[in-house]
């Protein structure tokens, strides 16, 4: 099994190389087969590896394959070493399996785009980088994947680069995630300075001996890692890039900005749990960041009118749940939510893509409507996704994962009632905006006619994803209902078990409250948006102002514009003729001036040359006599 690991990232890389070298001249079927085929093969290998892993857990709890030594400098030796343990297995399964479905979908979705080869090349490179990120056994290789996915995200957000706003969105995503990347890099440097290694296993083992719990070093390092994760995972206050990232094609949003890349921060924190556990302060910060983010983004999702922006804010909010779970030490719950979220959010994005295509690139949900009858497959699958998102009890995957987070946000050692309450409000908001989205798009009268039905090849991935959105939760039941905990048993080979408080109230009570809250959210959504009842209450001034505030994403863009962009532009205006440049210009000027002076000596006259030689001798002798 070990020797198969390399093929998992290598196949998409091969696809990238083929497509980027020969893609321009290849016929479309070839592009589609290479682009989607490599990822499908990688998915099959992953499943084979996964099955083998389940049947007999390998020694040390991981498969690993050393490909080659990357570089050795002093004490630092970095190997290209792939390592698949239980945690990584979950991630590579999602990346390749959901990735394969999205690639198949894309083959149809992008068929009429003239840059199909470029699209698939970037997507394949993305899959390869993401796999490297999660399969790396050291942080340097992880960082390579980390940067790779950032690059691909940039390329794919700006895929339709001829529209200036798309390029701007790509730049924004790149620059803001860069803030996080820089913090991560500094964190890695500090970690190397402290421990002298960047190998993850070594870090996990050495950290408890090296750092005292809560010391300044470990707090600083973990906060820097957290900021890195916040950038990639679009958490407060670095969340502003993700809604704009919806400028990319829908499959990109599904793969990169919902299922995989944006959860890199979750992976990083889970992977580095040994460090984070040493710093309770950072854990609290992680939980608070997650809780605040899920509320802020949830409220913004309520007010959006663009179908993809609703889903984008929803993604931010759901990743907020994952961060919350990480912060309270509910490691497996966080990963479980990642697992289910990948299915239903990818599904929602893909279905949204179908809807948008069918309605002449209409993004505004209030100009959709009545699609229930016209696009029944999309309706059913979207319903499954939205139900999972709003966590309808027992019948959806989202319920099982979100319920676990809600429970742990109170009951785990790091949990508090405030966090639980915030998560509960978030659950209410989630149900509300999911219902709103569903009702406005699929019920009511049809405002834009459907001009084409989706291809079969696009519907089949939707159905598969819908199936998993409903059933993926059944592998992990709440303890009080059924003793089935396949998922947490699996990931707890790597991640520590959640530490619980004592003397807790019954879990049933919490589940009842959560269920009631969710159903209330759905009901209120139904009241407000079914039919035309919603129009009147929106007109009152305070509500309209609140809506505008939420619509603009809590004015974060304006705030950053005021805090950073404006002062920066001011500085550039002031410093138009760069002060620093003066130094370089000075060197150039001095060079030219000296050139003029020295050139005089090169007049071709032999006498002068002899004078030069004699001057040299005089110089040497004088120096000798002086010293």
């Amino acid at each position, binding site marked *: 099994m070990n020797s198969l690991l390399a093929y998992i990232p290598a196949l998409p890389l091969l696809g990238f190389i083929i497509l980027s070298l020969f893609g321009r001249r290849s016929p479309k079927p070839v592009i589609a087969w290479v682009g989607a085929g490599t990822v499908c093969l990688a998915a099959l290998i992953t499943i084979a590896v996964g099955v083998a892993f389940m049947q007999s857990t390998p020694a040390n709890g991981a498969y690993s394959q050393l490909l080659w030594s990357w570089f050795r400098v002093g004490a630092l030796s970095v190997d290209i070493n792939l390592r698949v343990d239980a945690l990584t297995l979950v991630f590579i399964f999602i990346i390749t399996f959901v990735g394969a479905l999205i690639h198949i979908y894309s083959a149809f979705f992008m068929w009429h785009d003239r840059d199909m080869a470029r699209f698939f090349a970037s997507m394949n490179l993305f899959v390869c980088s993401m796999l490297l990120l999660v399969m790396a056994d050291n942080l340097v290789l992880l960082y390579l994947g980390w940067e790779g996915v950032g690059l691909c995200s940039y390329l794919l957000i700006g895929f339709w680069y001829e529209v200036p706003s798309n390029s701007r969105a790509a730049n924004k995503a790149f620059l803001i995630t860069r803030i996080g990347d820089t913090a991560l890099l500094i964190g890695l440097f500090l970690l190397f300075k402290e421990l002298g290694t960047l190998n993850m296993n070594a870090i996990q083992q050495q950290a408890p001996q090296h750092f005292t719990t809560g010391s300044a070093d470990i707090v600083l390092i973990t906060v820097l890692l957290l900021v890195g994760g916040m950038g990639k995972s679009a958490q407060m206050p670095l969340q502003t890039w993700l809604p704009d990232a919806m400028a990319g094609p829908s499959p990109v949003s599904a793969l990169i900005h919902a299922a995989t890349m944006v959860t890199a921060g979750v992976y990083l924190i889970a992977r580095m749990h040994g460090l984070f556990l040493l710093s309770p302060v950072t854990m609290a910060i992680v939980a608070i960041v997650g809780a605040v983010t899920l509320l802020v983004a949830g409220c913004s999702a309520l007010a959006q009118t663009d179908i993809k922006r609703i889903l984008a804010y929803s993604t931010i909010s759901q990743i907020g749940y994952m961060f919350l779970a990480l912060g309270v030490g509910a490691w497996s719950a966080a990963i479980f939510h990642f697992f289910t979220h990948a299915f239903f959010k990818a599904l929602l994005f893909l279905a949204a893509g179908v809807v948008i295509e069918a309605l002449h690139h209409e993004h505004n949900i209030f100009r959709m409507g009545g699609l229930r009858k016209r696009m029944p497959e999309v309706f059913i699958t979207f319903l499954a996704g939205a139900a999972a998102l709003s966590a309808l009890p027992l019948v959806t995957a989202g319920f099982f994962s979100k319920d676990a987070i809600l429970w742990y946000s109170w009951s785990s050692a790091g949990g508090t009632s405030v966090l639980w309450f915030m998560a509960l409000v978030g659950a209410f908001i989630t149900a509300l905006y999911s219902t709103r989205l569903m009702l406005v798009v699929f019920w009511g009268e049809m405002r834009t006619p459907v001009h084409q039905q989706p291809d079969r090849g696009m519907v089949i991935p939707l159905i598969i994803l819908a199936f998993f959105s409903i059933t993926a939760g059944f592998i992990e039941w709440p303890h009080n209902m059924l003793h089935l905990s396949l998922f947490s048993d699996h990931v707890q080979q790597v991640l520590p078990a959640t530490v619980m408080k004592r003397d807790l109230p019954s879990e049933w009570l919490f589940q009842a409250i959560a269920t009631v809250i969710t159903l209330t959210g759905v009901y209120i959504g139904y009241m407000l948006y079914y039919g035309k009842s919603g129009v009147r209450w929106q007109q009152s001034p305070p509500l309209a102002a609140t809506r505008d505030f939420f619509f603009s994403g809590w004015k974060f863009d304006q705030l950053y514009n005021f805090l950073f962009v404006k002062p920066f532009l001011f500085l550039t205006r002031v410093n138009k003729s760069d002060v620093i440049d003066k130094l370089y210009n000075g*060197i*150039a000027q001095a*060079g*030219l001036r*000296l*050139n003029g002076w*020295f*050139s005089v*000596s*090169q007049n*071709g006259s*032999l006498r*002068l*040359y*002899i004078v*030069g*030689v004699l*001057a*040299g*001798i005089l*110089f*040497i*002798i004088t*120096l*000798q*006599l002086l*010293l």
Partner: protein
Amino acid sequence: MTNLQLLALLPFMVLATAAVVVILLIAFKQSHTVIQVTGFFMMCAVVLAMWFVRDTLPREVPPLLVVDGLAALFTGLIIFSVLVVGLLSYIYFEEREENPKEYYILLFLATLGAAVLTISRHFISFFIGLELLSVSLYALIAYLRNRNNAIEAGVKYLMLAALTSAFLLFGMALIYMETGSMEFTAIGNAITKSGTSVLFLMGIGLIVVAIGFKLALVPFHLWAADVYQGAPAPVTAFIATVSKIGVFAVFVRFAQAIHLHENALAVTVLTVIAIACMIAGNVLALMQQNIKRLLAYSSIAHFGYLLVAFLSGDAGVGAGVFYLLAYSITLLSAFGIITLLSTRRKDADELSGYRGLFWRNPLMAAIFTVALLSLAGIPLTAGFPAKFFILTVGVQQHMWLLAVVLVLTSVIGLYYYLRIISTLFASPPLSPAKEKSLHPLFYAATYTSLVVLMFLLAWLGIFPGFIIDNVQEFLVIR
């Protein structure tokens, strides 16, 4: 002289024989091609002889000569350069000169002179080697006697070389007077015993003048541009590589023997000279439009860098040898391109003639680009590790001033190298195709060797470790 000593000198005897063989071939009225091919094989024979005697090293041949690892390195470098220069000479002289045959006698004699310099451990052999080299060079520079600036260059070189040779002899005499010996090691022993007197230091100063002239160090550099420009392109390549390698070799040996870098005064003088070289060479090249003159200025700057390694003492010798290797390969490929582009009447030395070369002849432009990047010290070419090693030893010896000047002037240097490269890729003017009268085989051979040089540059740039290890291995043979 024992057999083993004789054996150790075998490569040099083969080299001397080469000149004789060429004379005989001319006497029997053989064609240019035959002489060229024979010369090539004679040089290969020298390489074989060096391989053959490698186990007998180190071997002293008192009182004049010593064949050790240092000598082997420098001689190898010289023979390698001459192989390429010889190859370039064929197409160059076949086209331009009805009588190119005697050229090879001079070429091999000059090479012998340079090779003798690398093994000399005595003033006599030093002087004989230097004169053998210089006298051959006078004729070589002025070999194309129909060209005005060739004659001018030859005469200038002759006058200045004679002047500095006089200083050299005077300096040697002063040192002999003070120490009573002309053997490097004996001089070294004498001064460790009795210290350095003013007259001795003055003698050193005068020798530095002569060496500075040969290496074109500031302020003895003024001839360089005129001679580089006037001499035939292959001869310019020869001056820039072989003659400088030989002189540098004897300078290194002399300095090691008399512990020059422990003498504060000499170090001060050489530091000033090195800084002056780096600044003057780079600055003079800035606006230069003539490629051969530009390369002259560039080589002044490069020997300024090399002096930084030299001043680092024993630690710098390995870096210096590596630098010379990288520099020789680079310059030979650059001059190879100049030779290939030269027309019957005129060398291709005007920058305007290179405009758009890439669109006419991508291979040539690629080779030239790599060579220029290497001269500028851009990573992935040989110039980068070479400069890096020098900077490293400089910093290790705490020569901060030199290191700073090296870095700053390298930045200035970047400008004029990139200026040429941008010219290569500019849109081309309409120009008639160059007529090719020679057998295509010779062009193929020249191109092949240039491509090999280009790959060598890249190889040295990417994997310098192999060469540097071998150099260090050789240097301990002493």
